[in-house]
């Protein structure tokens, strides 16, 4: 794969370039605030660069950093699907003028992210159609991710939003579209005749904490308005309070169905920033636990999805698979669900003796369950009628929304960071990337099933090739000294104390690192100020971008299709709301 042509990017930015701030192998440019729309549009439309995905849009409050800069910075992570290139564009925003142009019309994925930046930092986006809080509740005052907002200053919420303002917006949009197409505009009376149904946040369909307000005409969904933030528990703020390794348990609870993948993703990102290379054995172990998590995650997702469309037996079958893998992981890590196994620069502990045989045995037992479920649903007429053609999305739209992972692959785009970036020897394993055709719920479910089988292949190979040796990096200053030594000698005891209290300094700088977790690309954008604590940890949650497309997916569908659509996206609230 050829390298990104940085000169071409520089040429496109032209006089609006402030600085080249590439580091850690990332290409990054700082751009003048007034020119951001022009620059991003040019990067997107350029024939060679073709940055067609906005992977992430976030901001940072840089007031605590040593360097002289404007207080805020808005950061755009671009990805060129065609070339596999990444590019970071940063825009300084001075405290006196907290605003810049919205790009919600360039990428659909920008819409919610801009709202989040407004919510968390108070930066306004000109031209955004619906700039209001998204994660914090509507009675919240202030912007919590600013450095001067005290972490534990909670604010009570007495009422729930009616969402009438957003309803008015979608009606406005509907009228505008009707005018464009030369159709009849819906009259006030027609709109009043529709029925409003509030679904969630506590509803079996809503997987915990999602709320959707739907407007129905008969049983057809005219509009769906999702409201999120009912599980916003402040990951990004909490990550700033402890040392680097303290983020690990929080990372567990992002996507709690596959906690180990999040662990590994975070550790990998910090290692990139700190310049640590982990031993080969560690990489193979990380591959094994990541793939085990993928199987579990897909099993839970498919189980819930299939039960949502009415087939209960499969739920028990798939949960048996999950339970079996849990038992192994519990033995390895001490916890069933939230494992906290990875560490920066290595792992909490090595594998126990006999792990490989046990995993092989468990996986052999799991295969019949997966196959049985496939026999039950694959050609089942009822199941097909509930899922085939339901909530279909085109590849172009999926890219525009920033979709990644199995949902994007079900829409026919074979993007898999494991194959493409080839970290942790993924490029040496023999496995296939299943791809769907129609991008509907059925394809998403089937892609997940197939990925389970591919993960089995990867685990088998990784166990075969796993070398002996240490699991922690030699030069690793993050790892706690062995407990026996801590109890015996003063030197390891002091080390332990310093590591726990003050952490290991990471050189100042920033980086973005991505990892293919079961749901798609989990990215971490990390800024270090040179101390033992993270300065800013921004997560790029795959669910966030998947769920943004939900109103479009269910528009015009039946109410019952909402369940199939939602389940097939695998929205995990812990990751969506963080």
């Amino acid at each position, binding site marked *: 794969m050829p390298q990104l042509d940085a000169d071409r990017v520089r040429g496109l930015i032209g006089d609006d370039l402030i600085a080249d701030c590439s580091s850690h192998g990332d290409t990054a440019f700082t751009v003048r605030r007034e020119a951001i729309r022009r620059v991003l549009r040019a990067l997107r439309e350029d024939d060679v660069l073709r940055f067609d995905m906005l992977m992430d849009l976030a901001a940072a409050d840089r007031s605590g950093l040593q360097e002289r800069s404007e207080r805020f910075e808005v950061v755009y992570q671009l990805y060129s699907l065609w070339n596999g290139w990444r590019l970071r564009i940063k825009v300084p925003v001075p405290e006196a003028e907290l605003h810049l142009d919205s790009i919600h019309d360039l990428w659909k994925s920008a819409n919610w992210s801009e709202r989040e930046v407004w919510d968390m930092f108070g930066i306004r986006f000109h031209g955004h159609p619906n700039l209001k809080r998204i*994660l*914090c*509740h509507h009675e919240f005052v202030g912007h*919590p991710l600013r450095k001067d*907002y*005290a*972490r*534990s*200053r*909670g*604010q*009570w*919420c*007495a*009422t*729930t939003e009616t969402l009438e303002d957003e309803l008015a917006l979608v009606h406005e949009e509907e009228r505008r579209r009707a005018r464009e197409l030369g159709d009849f505009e819906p009259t006030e009376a027609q709109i009043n005749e529709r029925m409003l149904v509030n679904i969630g*946040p*506590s*509803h*079996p369909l809503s997987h*915990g*904490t999602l709320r959707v307000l739907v407007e129905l005409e008969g049983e057809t969904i005219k509009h769906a308005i999702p409201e999120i*933030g*009912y*599980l*916003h*528990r*402040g990951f990004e*703020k*909490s990550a700033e309070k402890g040392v680097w390794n303290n983020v690990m*348990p*929080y990372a567990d*609870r992002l996507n*709690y*169905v596959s906690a180990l993948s999040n662990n590994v993703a975070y550790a990998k990102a910090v290692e990139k920033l700190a310049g640590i290379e982990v031993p080969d054995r560690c990489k193979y172990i990380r591959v094994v636990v990541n793939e085990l998590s993928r199987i579990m995650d897909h099993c*839970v997702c498919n189980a819930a999805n299939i039960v949502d469309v009415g087939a209960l037996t499969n*739920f*028990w079958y798939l*949960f*048996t698979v*999950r*339970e079996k893998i*849990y038992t192994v992981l519990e033995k390895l890590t001490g916890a*069933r*669900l*939230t494992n906290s196994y990875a560490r920066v620069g290595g792992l909490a502990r090595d594998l126990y003796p006999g792990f490989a045989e046990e995993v092989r045995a468990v996986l052999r037992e799991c295969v019949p369950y997966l196959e049985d479920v496939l026999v039950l649903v694959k050609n089942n007429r009822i199941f097909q009628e509930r899922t085939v053609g339901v909530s279909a999305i085109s590849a172009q739209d999926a890219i525009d929304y920033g979709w990644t992972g199995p949902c994007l692959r079900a829409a026919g785009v074979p993007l898999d960071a494991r194959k493409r970036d080839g970290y942790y020897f993924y490029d040496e394993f023999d496995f296939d990337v299943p791809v769907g055709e129609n991008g509907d719920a059925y394809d998403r479910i089937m892609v997940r099933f197939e990925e389970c089988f591919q993960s089995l292949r990867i685990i088998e190979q990784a166990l075969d090739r796993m070398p002996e040796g240490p699991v922690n990096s030699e030069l690793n200053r993050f790892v706690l000294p062995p407990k026996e030594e801590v109890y015996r000698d003063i030197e390891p005891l002091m080390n332990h104390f310093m590591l726990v209290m003050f952490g290991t300094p990471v050189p100042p700088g920033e980086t973005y690192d991505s990892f293919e977790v079961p749901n798609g690309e989990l990215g971490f954008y990390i800024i270090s100020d040179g101390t033992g604590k993270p300065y800013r940890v921004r997560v790029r949650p795959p669910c966030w971008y998947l769920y943004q497309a939900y109103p479009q997916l269910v528009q015009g569908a039946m109410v019952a299709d909402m369940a199939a659509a939602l389940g097939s996206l695998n929205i995990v*609230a*812990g990751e969506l709301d963080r």
Partner: protein
Amino acid sequence: MNMAQLATHDPFITTRFDAALAWARKNSLFPLPFGTACCAIEFMGVVSSQFDISRFGAEIVRFSPRQSDLMIVSGTVVYKMVPILRRIYAQMAAPKWVISMGVCASSGGFYDDYCTLQGIDQVVPVDVYVPGCPPSPDLLLDGLLKLQKKIDEQRLLQKA
């Protein structure tokens, strides 16, 4: 005397009415899973075959507050969720009980920040707290047994 003998030889047993009622209540709890986060996944584990909550008569999971008498708050409750939690609790018909599953629901857990409610007992009365992050399924079952004991001790005229 076993039940078969009881039925054939002596079809009547004498007991206090409220004891019989408590016995019936504690063995047929209808849980409403107020599942928000990680603990809800473990709750699913408790319901499914390996741990099987139906051994304790509480397998009929109802998502409607009108049909349930045990609210299991499993997961973090944030301030935004508070009005909903209160409302759902208010919609449940008495007698009703609440299990706070996991440390997040019990005290906010390690989410000591601007958005997380520091314990649901600030807004709804809690009968049993189950520790853990998340609690293992056995621990939740233990909490359920504790609740059953508590229900057993409650008397008819006492407020549930």
